């Protein structure tokens, strides 16, 4: 299932979920992630 990530170590269920959600917002998808370079409005204008 999406969310479980081997980058995430020992943590309470809530902390783990919070970390997973941050990663989802940072582009993690079930199959093809959104590369950081595709985030508009970032990188300085």
């Amino acid at each position, binding site marked *: 299932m999406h969310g479980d990530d081997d980058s995430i170590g020992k943590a309470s269920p809530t902390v783990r979920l919070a970390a997973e959600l941050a990663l989802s917002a940072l582009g993690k998808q079930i199959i093809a992630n959104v590369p950081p370079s595709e985030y*508009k409005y970032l*990188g300085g204008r």
Partner: protein
Amino acid sequence: MPTRTCAFVGAPFCEGQNLEGADLGPSALREAGIGRGAQKLGWNFEDLGDLNFAAHFESVGLGDKNGEPHFDKLALYREWLAETGMHTNFSTWVADKNREALVNLATDDALAPAPKRKKTQGVVNAERMGSGLRLIHEVVLKAAKAGHFVLTVGGDHSIASGSISALCEAHPGLGVVWIDAHADANTPGTSPSGHYHGMPAAHLMGWFGREKGGDEDAAAGGLRGFEWFTPGCLPEGQLAYIGLRDIDPEEGEALTRSGVHAFTMRDVDKYGIAKVCEMAVAAVSGPDGKAPLHLSLDIDGVDPNFAPGTGTCARGGLTYREVHYICEECALSRRLVSMDLVEVSPSSSVNSPLRLHADGLPHQVEVSPSSSVYSPLRLHADGLPHLVEVSPSSSVYSPLRLHADGLPHLVEVSPSSSVYSPLRLRL
């Protein structure tokens, strides 16, 4: 090569309420490996550390809370769970409890009836709140102007005033998707508790002081400690809530009259998360549909079965996948520029007596901190006593299936079993 930077701002700021614990949020996320995960996705992860509010308050002469009561967070939380069964908002419960204590002291009559709830007409710790939030504002603004994705981890949801005001400045036309069980849209005149973590949305939208008899100084931005703040920096139409289900009456009236896009849990029931998310994102994307987006995620927007570790639980929330879906959709928009992650309280995440004993029978349950999916209610849905020990390393665990045959079991899940299906074992 990383092409973008994610700036991690630790904001262990809990001045907006009387339940600490969320101050551990940034440290817990670091420990969990949020940096590794972000780097794996291709981000350059820049940890800006935790803002040192204690030192900041000392430096500006606000180092003492002037006798403001300081509560034992976990003991109080457990008392709330046991006494109210989560039917009363935690902040309201504490406010009532303190009021009763003060009246009893004043009258020296332990049998004196509890007074009716009275509006506080103010913000508890306003000056410290304003000063601390300014610190957050400045750090977030600097990171956003540098072109970074800003991940601000609280702390309580009061930090949104600091972060969102900065992001509105750095990204004009910003749209905000706000995931929460609560609207956080009380004003000093309507808040039952006076705790600012229930007010940041109202403050951002410029609602302070507009209620009848409200504080005109607050409306004008003159709330002590908030002189730097621009009330109304977030237009109502640029805010969309998802997951609302615990709203104070006057707050609900204000939302109904406003241009805010409020998608409650009923909307999620009715339309499904995909449609709600689509409508929410579209609503705050501006006339051309290209507005930069900010996600303000209060973990209590998620159902307590999936996220028990927060100060103000409210049943009937978003599921594990629903909240992930919202985050994924925001990312897929390619317009997400920042995120708040708040009210994560590691210390109250495990061992919630109320939910463990919802069936009214005795249980001895030990839940490991690392079990990623845990649903205590389902664990005891058969109404029989169990002794269950869940291993720290069991990454997938389905308690319902564990006891679906309705018989008492002594179950031990082995550390090495990554997928465990007891039903199959008993066939």
